[in-house]
């Protein structure tokens, strides 16, 4: 059907076209405690065709586009009808002209990742976790997926590649007398060693135990806060969103290259680099959906925005040549060791109920599921309450740990220090 779609779109009298075929195979297993709830397999093919029509409007070259997903078994007559509808839609949704990615070539044969074996490995890793007297696995879900993506366009792009990822969602309970709590552990990765999957869960066991003993978070108006959660990945995504071409072009970000993200000398300067490949990342895609090659690129260097990245069409509009479309990122470590960061009193947030990061307004924060409060002498586990901050208020005195950690497709400082935070909590 892939070739048939190309033949039909070539006959359709359009100015350009792009066809993206994605074949996704997924093997999944669901457990309640260590018992099998059910298992699933999914084998799905999607072919998304985009057509482009050019038109001159008041002396200006314009381009309209329309996309449609064709599923297998779609009859030829229906394909033809849909292409005609797409042509009409493209003719009434005109945008300033842009060019497609050209002449990129890279072809791989479809790989078989032996997903049943991969699933077996991940199941083993979690089955290897032994419940303690007080900490237990409540339930878990495992997804192992392989993708074959083939992108062809009318400007000479013909790239195909394979990719795979794994995802686990594990719910952990801890019991202390009558009190039972749960913590949530969800991670994505690719080809991660078995012992790291197991260790990730055991780390949560420790936090779960502490949460059973946690008391309510106290209200504070000027709290020094340490962020040590998996949401540090989300925290730094703020910089990716501020520099993403689609966000900048649609006015969601006003960042200009050369703008300073931070000022003054009282902070660790932030550097963010996009990486085309990162070992164990679930996002090692060598090409974008437009067929552009992923490449390494700094977007923030020493606190200054240095490059836009992302989607090809808004990049064209913004005049950005060779914008990176890499999906991994590395944030440089800061100036303080973890030991130094933990010397003075702090509220260290280990898990949020749901971390929010709004790149439009710069707001971030959320309800505290588990944190540690250290008053200079004693450290206690706390829960409940929330923080709500804004990047504009914290970046000029932010500190980060020298130590970094990998969270799926990124490497980020283990701990971020922010000052003067208002904590909503018990009076």
């Amino acid at each position, binding site marked *: 059907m892939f070739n048939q779609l190309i033949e039909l779109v070539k006959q359709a009298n359009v100015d350009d076209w792009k066809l993206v075929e994605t074949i996704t195979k997924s093997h999944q297993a669901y457990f309640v405690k260590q018992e099998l709830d059910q*298992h699933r397999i*999914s084998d799905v093919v999607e072919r998304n065709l985009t057509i482009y029509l050019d038109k001159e409007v008041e002396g200006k070259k314009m381009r309209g586009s329309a996309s*449609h997903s064709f599923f297998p078994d779609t009859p030829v007559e229906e394909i033809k009808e849909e292409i005609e509808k797409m042509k009409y839609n493209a003719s*009434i949704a005109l*945008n300033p002209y842009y060019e497609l990615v050209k002449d990129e070539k890279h072809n791989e044969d479809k790989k078989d990742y032996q997903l049943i074996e991969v699933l077996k490995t991940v199941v083993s890793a979690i089955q290897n976790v032994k419940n303690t007297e007080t900490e237990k696995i409540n339930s878990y879900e495992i997804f192992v997926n392989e993708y074959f993506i083939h992108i062809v366009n009318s400007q000479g792009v013909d790239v195909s590649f394979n990719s795979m990822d794994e995802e686990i969602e594990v719910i952990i309970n801890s019991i202390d007398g009558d009190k039972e709590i749960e913590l949530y552990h969800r991670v994505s990765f690719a080809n991660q060693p078995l012992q790291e999957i197991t260790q990730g869960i055991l780390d949560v066991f420790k936090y779960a135990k502490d949460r059973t003993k946690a008391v309510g978070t106290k209200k504070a108006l000027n709290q020094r806060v340490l962020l040590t959660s998996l949401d540090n990945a989300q925290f730094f995504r703020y910089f990716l969103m501020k520099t993403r071409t689609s966000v900048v072009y649609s006015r969601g970000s006003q960042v200009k290259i050369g703008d300073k993200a931070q000022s003054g000398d009282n902070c660790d300067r932030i550097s963010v680099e996009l990486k085309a490949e990162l070992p164990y990342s679930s996002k090692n895609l060598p090409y974008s959906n437009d067929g552009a090659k992923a490449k390494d690129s700094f977007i923030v260097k020493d606190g200054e925005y240095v490059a836009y990245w992302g989607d090809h069409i808004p990049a064209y509009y913004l005049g950005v040549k060779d914008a990176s479309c890499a999906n991994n990122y590395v944030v440089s470590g800061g100036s303080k060791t973890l030991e130094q960061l933990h010397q003075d009193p702090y509220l260290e947030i280990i898990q949020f109920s749901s971390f929010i990061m709004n790149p439009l307004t710069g707001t971030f924060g*959320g309800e505290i599921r588990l944190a540690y409060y250290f008053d200079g002498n004693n450290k206690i586990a706390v829960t409940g309450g929330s923080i709500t901050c804004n990047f504009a208020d914290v970046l000029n005195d932010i500190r980060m740990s020298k130590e970094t950690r990998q969270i799926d497709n990124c490497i980020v400082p283990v701990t971020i220090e922010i000052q003067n935070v208002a904590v*909503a909590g018990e009076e």
Partner: protein
Amino acid sequence: MLAKQSSYLLQCKPKLQKLLALLESDFDYVSVLATDVTGASFYISQRQKIINDYSDGERGFVVRVYKDNGYSEYSFNELGDVEKLAKTIKDELNQQGSMLEKMNIKKLETPLLYEEKISKEFAGEIAEELYHLDNENIVNKMQAISDEVAKKEHIIECRVNYSAGIFQKMFLSKNKDLIQAYGCSFANIMMLANKDGNTQYNVLSDTAWCGSEILDNLVPKIESAYEDLVAMFDAEAIEPGEYEIITTPEGAGLIAHEAFGHGVEMDMFVKDRAIAKQHMGEKLASDITNMYDGAQGGIQQSASYFFDDEGTLCERTQIIKDGYLVSGICDLMSAARLGVTPTGNGRRESFARKVYTRMTNTYFEAKQDSVEDMISSVKYGFLIDGMNSGMEDPKHWGIQCVMSRAKEIKDGKLTGKMFTPVVLTGYVPDLLSNISMLGKDLYLNGNGHCGKGYKEWVIVSDGGPYLKTKVRLG
């Protein structure tokens, strides 16, 4: 008019029946859900115009089978040679099942699903327009809205979205032969403003079983939404503390959804992940509080349908009655495990994903209070508006709702002072027990998608009347 059934699904039906027959020789239970969700989506802003397929569109199948006390599923979207397909499904599921069995993994005991014989066709009222949208007219209408808003001071962009979805599904098993069709329109207007380098936004949205006139319904609300947006630039951060609040219907909906929407999803009862399991029949809300969830029962919204993704016919479930927690919501497999009746809440993100217990249209019942009376009853507190996001915690009954703004109320009057953003947190029974007033008019909005944890996104609607309670804000 009534929605038409999918000709694609009807065309596939003989092949699917053959597939079921072929699989029945190897499995004790076999069913197939077939989906054909079509439609269009329009995005018009000052800088971009896009017309595409409806974003939740899909066309595919999922087979569920039962063998040796366990269930498994196979999702696919190519029927092709049915005999070959049946063999692939059997071979691959058996291979995966054997692998798990060889690892000595115990199965969670689940009885064979019981199904009463039923053959029925369901069609919802649908705007005829959804079958032949006048795309040019819609684009022009949306452009006019965007252009008008963009003229206003501080506005840097106005994004207008309209989607029309036609939902068509068929469920077949030995005893069930069901098919349904219905349609829904989704619209939102996002105003983006910048002042002195700060960016704020406000979103107007609506959903209904109607056509593109839904866009027209939003237009009269633009001016006041713009005024709120501009006021947000002068808003202060709220001092953390416990306050009396009044929420708009969308805030009430978010509370309903996060509190005893997620809190009573009964697949969480199977896992002992929801504390509500131990508190059924207890008084957990104030006397005036009644709460419902249902894909049917007089509500025609974005999450209304006739049968769920497991072929269970839908009704409305009363979750809270006069303050008492009286029922949860349940999918078919969880119901079998718990020994209760399923409520038609078994839903999938798509044919390629698993069923979970999911909410549909979740809402507080309206009562008799006027908004004016509610505001005048507040000594010091806030009118909370503009839903951003929420999070459930069914195990501990924690709740987190992120709202755009809080308008200050002092001595029964709005002062004009605004605070933003607002994170509402608390303990669900406290929050519900503190509900002291409920407005007269019920309003539901279904523009959002709800996740199970952080995945499995399905369309839901939620709402209620204006609602007064007491919570912690930060």
